[in-house]
């Protein structure tokens, strides 16, 4: 009967209850939208951040992640990448990484030279799609290079120009090659545009005396959610002497930036929830004051003061549940629609195109994004009623009945 009584009490002042529930529904829809957008945005941030070059997983020599030295190699890297591409839903590409002095006719700069598999690199990296002059690499053993736009400018290079690379080979001997600029990319990431270059893996191995070895095999799964499962499958196929790292280990800064963003977002959510809680507090205080006489009656009839308090809490819980159900329904419908059709805002398409990235955000509908916010509102609504409920514990039946007559 407590619940029945609580439910009927709510509808004594339907306008006030509807306004309070309406505020809850609005804030719940807002929270569901914001949290789903945030989760979707993080997915996009991770995917986009990893798409440039890191990938979801990397096979490396055991200590390469801490100290990326030339001699820490993955044997038969291209063959391993080929084997991993055989796993359903996975893309893989082998890479070699070296440092070299790049000398044009006029200038010399230190650059990172990455040996890539021209055919497979586009499936694990968005960089090949960012060529804005010339073309990407095509043949595995061609003496060609693609360079960042700033590097090209610094070295005064254009497509078709020659560039000399000078570095150290795997065995420590002098490594040198002359390559032709096949393409120039512009990623809008200053470090990449200024100091990154790519040459075919076969040519890289030949130039740096690598044999069939590489330094990395980059693996991407269909999406970030599939990484865990992919890691298990890749792990089963790894030869001895190499290890597998996931994106979290490879790009710790990415998770840290997400966590920092989460912190500030949750502060905003907290403020929103507290505002709603004050609304509930106001409603329940008014409601308790109006019903002082009635509480006196039920106390006189023998209802323990604690149970009277629980009645008030039950009323708030019912309002919170109603707000949660309606909020989850409307919020769920909105974010479900946007998760299919995407959400974009003016200027986003142009910005995304610049980075060779998707033009819209797809909010992610999960149990957490659907219910985390509404549950917070529910909990705070009940918490906000504790004070009015506690006031009732001090109520004397005779005083309550007399005061309100």
């Amino acid at each position, binding site marked *: 009967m407590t619940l029945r009584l609580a439910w009927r009490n709510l509808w004594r002042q339907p306008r006030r209850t509807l306004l309070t529930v309406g505020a809850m529904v609005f804030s719940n829809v807002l929270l569901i939208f914001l949290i789903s957008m945030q989760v979707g945005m993080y997915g996009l941030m991770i995917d986009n951040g990893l798409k440039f070059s890191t990938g979801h997983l990397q096979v490396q020599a055991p200590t390469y992640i801490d100290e990326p030295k030339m001699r820490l190699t993955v044997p038969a890297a291209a063959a391993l990448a080929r084997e991993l591409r055989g796993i359903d839903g996975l893309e893989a590409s082998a890479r070699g990484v070296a440092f070299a002095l790049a000398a044009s006719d006029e200038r010399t700069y230190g650059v990172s030279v990455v040996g890539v598999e021209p055919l497979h690199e586009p499936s694990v990296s968005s960089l090949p799609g960012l060529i804005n002059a010339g073309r990407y690499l095509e043949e595995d053993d061609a003496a060609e290079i693609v360079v960042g736009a700033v590097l090209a400018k610094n070295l005064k290079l254009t497509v078709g120009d020659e560039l000399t690379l000078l570095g150290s080979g795997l065995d420590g001997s002098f490594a040198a090659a002359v390559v032709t600029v096949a393409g120039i990319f512009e990623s809008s990431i200053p470090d990449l545009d200024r100091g990154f270059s790519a040459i075919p893996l076969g040519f890289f191995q030949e130039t740096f005396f690598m044999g069939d070895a590489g330094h990395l095999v980059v693996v991407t799964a269909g999406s970030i959610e599939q990484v865990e499962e992919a890691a298990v499958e890749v792990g089963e196929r790894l030869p001895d002497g190499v290890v597998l790292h996931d994106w979290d280990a490879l790009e710790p800064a990415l998770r840290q930036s997400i966590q920092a963003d989460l912190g500030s977002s949750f502060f905003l959510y907290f403020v929103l929830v507290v505002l709603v809680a004050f609304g509930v507090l106001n409603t329940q205080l008014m409601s308790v004051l109006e019903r002082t006489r009635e509480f006196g009656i039920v106390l006189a009839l*023998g209802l323990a*003061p604690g149970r009277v308090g629980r009645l008030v809490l039950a009323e708030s819980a019912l309002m919170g549940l109603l707000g949660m159900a309606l909020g989850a329904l409307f919020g769920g419908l909105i974010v479900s629609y946007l998760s299919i059709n995407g959400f974009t805002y003016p200027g986003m398409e142009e910005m995304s195109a610049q980075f060779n990235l998707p033009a819209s955000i797809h909010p992610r509908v999960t149990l957490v994004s659907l219910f985390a916010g509404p549950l917070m509102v529910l909990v705070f609504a009940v918490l906000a009623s504790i004070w009015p409920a506690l006031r009732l514990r001090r109520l*004397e039946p*005779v005083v309550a009945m007399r005061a309100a*007559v």
Partner: protein
Amino acid sequence: MTAVRCVDLSKTYRQGDQEIRALDHVSIDIDAGDFVCLSAPSGGGKTTLLNAIGGLDRPDSGEIYIAGERIDTLSKAELAELRLHRIGFVFQAYNLIPVLTARENVEFVMQVQGVGPAERRRQAEQILEEVGLEGMGERRPAEMSGGQQQRVAVARAIVSKPALVLADEPTANLDSTTSDELIDLFTRLNRHHGTTFIIATHDRRVMGYARRLVKMLDGRIVDDIRQHAA
């Protein structure tokens, strides 16, 4: 057997600067099964005495016993438990819960007592029939007359068969016919169930039904008369 025993009860209220002595060294014993009227002019102390006996108000000094158990030293929760199981209240202003139907109002006390739904419903319907409200169980208080509401209040007070019923001016808002019917109901319940009734009233007709008439003035018992009930 003594149903209620009050020993040297005193209670003082402050109203602004004025001190009102609502109970002034009141002592009284009431037998189980008795039908007692407390009569006094306004401010005479009858409601204060009734509230003290019912554990709704605490005396400043003195002792109160219900069926031999001292109650003036009990905690709020213990007093609530006592009221729930052993005392029925009928108030002047009916004091029904407006959002509940007549039947649900009657069931309320049993529900708090933990009686199962089917048994609650059966007993509620039976008692509503007994107080002459058969077929009106699904009406809400606002849909009933004052007399009908007071009958629901009586049904609520007696449904769990308390040993003691305390009624404060139960006929004050009723017309004479309805008042007579209500008092008739009280006397029947008193005779059939052996329930002890203590009624605070101004109403001379109600006093006529009582077997014992206790008159109060300025917080003191000034007369205590045994009489033949009407």
